[in-house]
């Protein structure tokens, strides 16, 4: 993918930062305002996809290598599961909101609801990373198909 014109690139570079920050904001305040980890994750993935579209996937992959993204995908899911499992240790039961029961913050606070922001951040990591991967993988395949002839897909993390 070659990318687009200078105007698009310049705008994309600035807009990307804002989209990324907006995604973070939506994630962190997910329990107070509309939004949440999932929406935030999609928005963060969109910021990387914007770079992919404007500059080509090389730059995007330099900013977030595929292997790192795949790692984040698993790590996000694991954080979610582990925090839920800690509920058994600290709260006596699976999925107990042990953080909130230990440290009840005041209402309408960023830290007011214990494990919920943690879950949101974990989901955001997972969703952002995995959707970015999907997009890149689909675009990788497209190029190779168009070349027609022997099929060889160059993936960042191929075995052997």
């Amino acid at each position, binding site marked *: 993918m070659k990318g687009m014109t200078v105007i698009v690139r310049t705008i994309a570079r600035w807009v990307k930062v804002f989209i990324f920050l907006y995604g973070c904001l*939506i994630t962190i305040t*997910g*329990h*107070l*305002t*509309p*939004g*949440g980890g*999932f*929406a935030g994750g*999609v*928005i963060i*993935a*969109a910021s990387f*996809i914007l770079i992919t579209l404007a500059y080509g996937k090389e730059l995007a992959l330099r900013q977030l290598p595929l292997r790192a993204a*795949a790692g984040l*995908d*698993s790590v*996000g*899911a694991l954080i*979610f*599961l582990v925090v*839920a499992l800690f509920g058994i240790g600290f709260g006596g039961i*699976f*999925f107990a*909101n042990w953080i*909130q029961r230990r440290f*009840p*913050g005041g*209402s*309408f*606070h960023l830290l*007011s*609801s*214990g*494990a*919920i922001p943690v*879950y*949101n951040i*974990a*989901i955001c990591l*997972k*969703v952002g990373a*995995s*959707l970015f*991967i*999907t*997009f890149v*993988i*689909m*675009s*990788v*395949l*497209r190029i190779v*198909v168009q070349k027609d002839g022997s099929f*060889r*897909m*160059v*993936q960042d993390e*191929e075995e052997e």
Partner: protein
Amino acid sequence: MGTEISILVLLVFMIVAALIAAETRSLLSSVISLGAVGVGVSIAFLFVAAPDLAIVQVSVEVLLLLFFVRSTIGREVEHVKGRIRWPGLLLAILLCAGVLAFGVYALRSLPPFGSPVISAVKEAPSNLYLEKSLKETGAPNVVAGIILDYRGYDTLGEATVLFASILGALAILRGRAKRRKEK
């Protein structure tokens, strides 16, 4: 009353878009029409006081459109020569029409639009969520309280679904699926 009319208008718009998506010859127009349906759903979520859903729907919609466009652009896709097999098609249409007719009849036994089941069933869990979410979970956004605390296990399942589908997409799109024979 205003909400109901707005939603009706939106639904008609979505039905038209869905029909175009189903029947148009150009695959790209079909994909764009699907996008129109998705945006319609997102706006309808705003009308029924579901801002969380509207945000998620619109962002998912954009992403899905990107995926769809990726899969259509630059391919020889318009050409579908398969002969239409009338018996199968007629059967499918009759089946759909039958279910539709019964469904429309059956849906009349729901309470009218705008009076949800939680108004009738006082002990329904939703009323408890609305009453106690702030105190019990600390989340003023009741929907966030439900998906991440009361029903957090569902959300774990949801994250797992996404994990499985991404892993599956990666597995399906991987370069070489089988090792070369040693011989």
